[in-house]
């Protein structure tokens, strides 16, 4: 029983909750929580060969951005913007929760198939990482589920803010999958920071646009954003 599994379980929990939560504020809190846990994952994974200073520094920055800055922005947005704090899903909560569960099953299936194809080679190449590889299964499952649920949120929620949150979840998922697969990236902090910066700016821009949308439409319901069509 590796410690990282607990983290991953927490992430999955947050995903499922976010799918069935009906209050924006709660949703934002969930994302903040999820952000912190996700940024902690590399930390707990690399316990195998000890913590480096840079790794910890990086962890702190990640937490700062994903766990504090972005949620803070979201909170401001929510408080400034939202008239009704309901989430107003296009498909019901239970349905989306159910979809989330299906997502988990799907990701498990994908992961297994991938492992059966790849991990023999992988472990052959990195024998010292055998247990690491084992953990990867769950990591990959979590990543795919998170990403999928993010997409579900994007497709099934009416409020623009919820879509931003969906985007963030998707980003987290991808980050997890990246951690599971490509460790080289996570050794290059410049690139990491650049990606992080992009994420931050993206949320910032979205926030600004949201703000403007709210000013002009008095709401952030994307149903109002369906005028441009052929």
């Amino acid at each position, binding site marked *: 029983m590796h410690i990282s599994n607990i983290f991953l379980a927490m992430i999955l929990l947050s995903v499922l909750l976010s799918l069935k939560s009906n209050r924006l504020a709660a949703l934002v809190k969930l994302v903040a929580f999820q952000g912190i846990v996700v940024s902690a994952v590399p930390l707990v994974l690399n316990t195998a060969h000890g913590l480096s200073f840079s790794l910890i520094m990086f962890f702190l920055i990640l937490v700062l951005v994903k766990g504090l800055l972005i949620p803070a922005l979201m909170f401001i947005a929510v408080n400034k913007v939202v008239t009704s704090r309901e989430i107003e899903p296009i498909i019901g909560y239970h349905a989306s929760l159910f979809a989330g569960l299906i997502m988990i099953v799907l990701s498990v299936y994908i992961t297994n198939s991938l492992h059966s194809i*790849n991990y023999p080679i992988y472990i052959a190449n990195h024998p010292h990482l055998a247990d690491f590889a084992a953990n990867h299964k769950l990591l990959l499952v979590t990543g795919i589920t998170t990403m999928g649920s993010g997409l579900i949120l994007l497709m099934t929620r009416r409020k623009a803010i919820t879509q931003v949150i969906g985007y963030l979840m998707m980003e987290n998922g991808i980050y997890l999958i990246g951690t599971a697969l490509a460790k080289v990236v996570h050794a290059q902090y410049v690139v990491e920071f650049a990606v992080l*910066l992009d994420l931050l700016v993206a949320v910032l821009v979205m926030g600004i*646009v949201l703000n403007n949308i709210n000013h002009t439409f008095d709401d952030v319901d994307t149903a109002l954003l369906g005028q441009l069509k052929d």
Partner: protein
Amino acid sequence: MLQFVFIIPLIAGIAVFFLPVKTGRVVLLSTAVIHAFFTTMEWFKLTGPLQTRYFSNSPEGMLLLAILSFLFIFISLYTVFYMSEVEMSKEPTFNGCMLLFLSAMSMVTIADHIIMFWVAVEATTLMSAPLIFIRRSKESLEATWKYVLICSVGIALALLGCFFVIFSMEISDIHVRISFTSLYAIAPQLNPLWLKAGFIFIVIGYGTKVGLAPMHTWLPDAHSESPTPASALLSGALLNCAFLGVYRCHQLMFAAGLGEYSSNVLIAFGLASMLVSAVFILNQKDYKRMLAYSSIENMGIITIGIGIGGLAAFGAMLHIIHHSLIKSSLFLSAGNMLLGYGTKLIDKTGGVLRLFPKTGITFFAGFVGISGFPPFGLFISELLIILGAIKAGRYVTVSIFIFSLILIFAGAAKLVMQMIFKDNENDEILVPDKWPRALPPIILLLTSLVLTIWLPDSIYQTIQNVISSIGGPVNG
């Protein structure tokens, strides 16, 4: 030094935010010129071949950088006169973002590290978003929202694709710098399955930005709602930059011996884009949307050409050059019409030739060019693509290609002829057309014309180097 091409615009852009309007304009123009200067330096390798950790001057990158830089000079020139017509409250923001946008795009063209490339592409999205919603009208906000969200989602997927590509390297226990150039070298050893997966995600991710159907959905809105200079820049430069990502990955697949697969994928997306644009160009109501869909079509043509390779790839490269020139010229002319009529509806813009002779001529000339007539370059590129496609034995592709070309031409010709020649019900002119704003489109068209008659050898050589990595020489 290579990085100047994005560092200088970056600094200038940030500066413009805080400078007064007049100086801002000056900075904009001068930066454009300086950028062009550095680009030429790079083009002629005056700084020597350069290979940093994250950047390199690849032939395809240089080609796009040259186009970008050339376009930007005239678009910024246009911007200055355009701004003097429309009093925009947030002009410094606009000019600043133009420069930041330029810097982001320049970064894309020279980025070599896979993730750094991704970062640059995402940056272009974010930097261009303010350009689109600068007016804060309902439509522009909606367009921006769709643009930012859809592109961000798409590009996030591209990041996933990048991870897959990297993993395809790690899994077979190779460790090189994860930059395109170094990956080409070891491409054959990459794990094909993960490489394919990566390719799919990257094509779909960056394809979203290129405007390949069915991920094109944001494009017509963004291109039609943004202010004229922005539209011109989006259509003329941004799409190419995004396409660079697709192209690089195709190159990688080719090096890995999966060229067959990636070619088919590209051709499929290209044909889809052409058909989709055909659907929406027929009885379109809004002329900027029409131009946007035509951009989708042309990106589709380019994708097809690259997918086919050989002579068609050469054609596609020519197509990139001439499409950028002609399409941005068209958007600038459309901007002049928008100023003159105050509406984007085709039914309300009649008799352009009579009311705005200069704009009418440039617009129609642009249309003639975009639909593949000489003396403009798209004629030769489309001819070469058809020849190459049939040589490659892709008969189905060719038939769909020709079919949709005819459809699109039929649709567009109807609208354009109506706009240019049919008389308008009321002849009131909001803003008369002036030489300063008519000149940039004319120059862009003339450039395309000159390049059709005489293509400099250096460009030819560059294109040769580009396509040599995807299916051999021109007469292959």
